[in-house]
């Protein structure tokens, strides 16, 4: 590497970039232990019922087929607290696509052929896969994802709404969304006696290890997990998924190393999805725009086997001062695959609805939407009353307005026409909580001047190795290219998963502590280092997870310019601009990539992405990337990410907030608001495809 800038935030290049673009970087199903064989699941073709018979004779008769695991023959698993991992343990089919058998063969082709030759008979039961806002089985959960209360109330929101001078009462719908990381989930598993090694595509190896140890009733030290490179996860690899359990079961059963890669179309049913959300938002305000009532009600689905409730009403507890509020969730357990984390769970759909409603209120008031937000800036976190550790939403809005050219905007909708195109601009706020978990780390100073940082962090594509080296170099006061980062395998000091935008803060904190300790030790000694070097370690348990007296969140503002073709209803985004206040930015290059990636995903949420459920079969429709449209290059316009320097002493030693998710938050609302400004029509159901927008 050439120049090695070491200033905080320096745009240091990803260390594994070359290995990735040359194909040298190894992913979970690129390991080939001797004797490796292949697993291929048999997915259920019904949404609810029981397997009554399973004929494997034709499959087993095929050449090269070693076994077909079924719920009768598969090794037994212990309870690990996650029913989605209890695969091949009983004959119940909880949703379409649930694995009912697993073929194992010498070649991938034979495994596929064998899986296709398994004959399954089901006793089906009537299924229900359709979410409606008035579903008779809707219930209010006590707790939603993230440990938040299902409902919060302040004052008398209904009375205040009834009395409000200006009101909006609007409903929005966000469809099921799929994470679809570039690398599908896959694993290679092998047993040596009673020791299990897996190469997995996961956001957290230690989490995988703990779970596999429980499932197979092993002490954790007998389970090794390697996650050297991971091709994205967006939450869908945050916890172990069935693929790694299936691979381990098959390896146990056959005595051979087993490799299993899920198909793209299997991801929708086996690795979680963002549940659809139906929103009703009521905002009541005084004529000067000050909110007197804020009510956000969310209805969503979960599965029959594990409750996961997308916390879409939670961001409304953070954003605006209002005299009164109610934020609540209702869930319906349907015969669908279990939803789970997808980039900014809660915030992404919740802020789409809230920030669209705020725009609608601005229109109703005849007020600029930025000024409306400024008028409702809270002195402390509205729901908890805790002071913010830092909050620079207004600065983001102002900075964004200046960069985007917002000032002087004509607020009238539907008046900017050029040929068939109507154009408009929109704005929305963004927020994401500061999450952090305890981590351990060690750092060793070697006599040759090399410093080696070790911890079981996972690089899911964000550049973790690079930024951790930068944090270490800073703390040690050395050049960044004198620091090596060793991550991605259990046995290294325990570290939390890459999720909740918390990886860098959690790992970096421990790395920083270890490096500062090592620097002190080095300063105190004289003479050469011992041949094995000198090591310091840190464990931030009790520190990183200590309760903060502050409400800690990142904030941001998204601006969009959209053009709507009035002949076709096609919406094209022409410009996207984000400004973030997310503490100190630790690497300008990788941070920009994360922000922009989040914005592109938000663009997809606004315009192209949506998973439909086939009512007859209970299956997701359009499960591959030809049917589920993520934005292509031609959809991604001039896109800019900026940030403001934010000093916040209440975070972690680096002063950083998470940046992996905030880019998707509010982006869809900014685009939807721009579409309204362009057309004068509010479309309240995503995505904004021609079937909805063509009028």
């Amino acid at each position: 590497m050439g120049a090695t800038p070491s200033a905080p935030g320096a745009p240091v290049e990803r260390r594994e970039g070359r290995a990735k673009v040359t194909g040298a970087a190894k992913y979970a199903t690129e390991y080939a232990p001797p004797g490796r064989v292949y697993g291929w699941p048999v997915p259920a073709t019904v949404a609810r019922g029981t397997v009554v018979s399973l004929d494997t004779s034709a499959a087993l008769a095929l050449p090269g087929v070693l076994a077909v695991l079924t719920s009768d023959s598969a090794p037994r698993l212990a309870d690990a607290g996650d029913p989605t991992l209890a695969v091949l343990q009983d004959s119940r089919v909880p949703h379409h696509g649930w694995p009912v058998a697993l073929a194992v063969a010498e070649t991938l082709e034979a495994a596929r052929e064998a899986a296709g030759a398994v004959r399954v008979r089901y006793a089906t039961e009537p299924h229900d896969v359709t979410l409606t806002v008035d579903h008779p089985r809707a219930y209010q959960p006590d707790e939603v994802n993230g440990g938040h209360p299902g409902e919060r109330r302040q004052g008398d929101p209904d009375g205040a709404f009834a009395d409000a001078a200006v009101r909006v009462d609007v409903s929005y719908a966000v469809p099921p969304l799929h994470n679809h990381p570039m690398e599908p989930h896959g694993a290679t598993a092998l047993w040596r006696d009673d020791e299990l090694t897996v190469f997995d595509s996961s956001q957290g190896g230690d989490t995988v290890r703990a779970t596999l140890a429980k499932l197979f009733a092993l002490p954790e030290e007998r389970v090794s997990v390697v996650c050297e490179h991971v091709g994205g996860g967006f939450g869908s690899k945050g916890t172990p998924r069935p693929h790694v359990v299936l691979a381990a079961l098959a390896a146990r059963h056959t005595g051979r190393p087993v490799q299993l890669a899920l198909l793209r179309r299997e991801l929708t049913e086996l690795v979680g999805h963002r549940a659809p959300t139906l929103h009703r938002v009521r905002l009541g305000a005084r004529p000067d725009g000050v909110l007197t009532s804020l009510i956000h009600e969310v209805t969503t689905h979960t599965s029959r086997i594990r409750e996961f409730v997308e916390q879409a009403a939670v961001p409304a507890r953070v954003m605006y001062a209002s005299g009164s509020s109610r934020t609540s969730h209702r869930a319906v357990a349907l015969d669908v695959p279990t939803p789970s984390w997808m980039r900014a769970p809660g915030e992404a759909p919740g802020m789409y609805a809230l920030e669209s409603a705020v725009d609608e209120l601005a229109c109703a008031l005849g007020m600029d939407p930025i000024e409306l937000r400024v008028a409702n800036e809270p002195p402390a976190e509205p729901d908890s009353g805790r002071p913010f550790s830092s909050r620079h939403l207004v600065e983001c809005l102002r900075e964004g307005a200046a960069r985007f050219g917002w000032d002087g905007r004509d607020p009238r909708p539907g008046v900017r026409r050029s040929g068939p195109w109507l154009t408009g601009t929109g704005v929305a706020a963004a927020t994401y909580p500061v999450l952090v978990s305890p981590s351990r780390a060690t750092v060793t100073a070697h006599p040759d001047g090399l410093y080696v940082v070790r911890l079981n962090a996972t690089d899911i594509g964000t550049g973790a190795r690079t930024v951790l080296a930068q944090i270490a170099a800073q703390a040690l006061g050395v050049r960044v290219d004198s620091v090596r980062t060793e991550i991605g395998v259990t046995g290294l000091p325990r570290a939390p998963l890459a999720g909740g935008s918390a990886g860098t803060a959690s790992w970096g904190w421990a790395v920083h502590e270890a490096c500062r300790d090592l620097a002190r030790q080095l300063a105190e000694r004289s003479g050469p280092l011992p041949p094995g070097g000198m090591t310091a370690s840190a464990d931030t348990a009790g520190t990183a997870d200590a309760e903060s007296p502050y409400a800690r969140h990142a904030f941001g503002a998204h601006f969009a310019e959209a053009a709507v073709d009035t002949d076709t209803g096609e919406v094209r985004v022409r410009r996207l601009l984000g400004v973030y206040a997310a503490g100190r930015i630790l690497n300008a290059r990788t941070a920009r990539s994360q922000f922009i990636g989040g914005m592109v995903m938000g663009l997809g949420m606004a315009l192209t992405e949506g998973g439909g459920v086939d009512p007859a079969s209970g299956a997701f429709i359009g499960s591959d990337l030809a049917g589920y449209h993520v934005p292509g290059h031609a959809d991604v316009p001039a896109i800019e990410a900026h940030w403001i320097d934010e000093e916040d002493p209440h975070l972690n030693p680096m002063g950083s907030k998470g940046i992996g998710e905030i880019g998707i938050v509010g982006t869809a609302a900014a685009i939807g608001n721009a579409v309204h400004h362009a057309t004068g029509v509010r479309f309240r159901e995503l995505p904004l495809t021609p079937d909805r927008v063509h009028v």
Partner: protein
Amino acid sequence: MKPLLYVRAESVGEAAAAHAGRPEARYLGGGTNLVDLMKLGVERPEVLIDISRLPLDQVEELPDGALRIGATVRNSDLAGHPLVRERYPVLSQALLSGASGQLRNVATTAGNLLQRTRCAYFQDVGKPCNKRVPGSGCGALTGVNRDHAVLGHSEHCVATHPSDLAVALAALDAVVELAGPGGGRTVELTEFHRLPQDSPDQDTVIRPGELITGVLLPPLPGGTVSRYRKARDRASFAFALASVAATVQVRGGVVRHIGVAFGGLAHRPWRARRTEAALLGSAPTPEAVARAVDAELAAAVPLRDNAYKVSLARDLACEVLGSLTART
């Protein structure tokens, strides 16, 4: 593992010989659709006859001014061919609106015509589909059918043909040249693809073992202008929700030649004969164009999720015909 015989044909005769007596043989062009379908288990050929090296990769001008497009001409090459760009812009535009650059570099002319529907029920062997398994039912009829047909469908199948190229060829009066066990024959492009009726497993009128060798494009009358326009879910790399190909010649304020076809609406490229008949010999005023387009779309029978296609196709056609008649 299902064994697969791969044969590389060097001549049309060799290809035909390799196919003879093997109902489960498939000709392999660019493979951009067939290989996907094999991975999905929808196609399970026993023999793949690779015809991509046949000497059918040229675009040639015939003495009568027609163009003959070889079956294995790549989509990118066809779209970029100077004579195509000059004389048949509608064809070039249709090709470039389809797929992605990488796919167009590989996909062939004949393969494009023979690609299968992207109906999600057809592509999933776990779901009912009369096209894939005759008699198994149509999952899309009462399922998720936003992308499906509004014209010419039957209770047995509501799939659409996904090609953009074929829509332009339908408007251009193109002719498909076939070689087969019984000798050569030609079929008009508009008659090449079928409506589903009660046998949706038959996409086209091609006979067992027959091979497309080329496509003939007759010359357009002088002064004819043409255009393709497609509405889709994203800016590139998405199939048509609806599309229109049109060729128009106006002389003395009156339409003297017209060819109009819709894509994304039916089991085959939908030649809009009623629209053409209504406009031929008339002045193409906006009102006349709208009436003519409505005359064609009056037959539309939308499904649960796709009523939008009718108005979308209408607006597309009115815009395209309006712009063309204004230019000519």
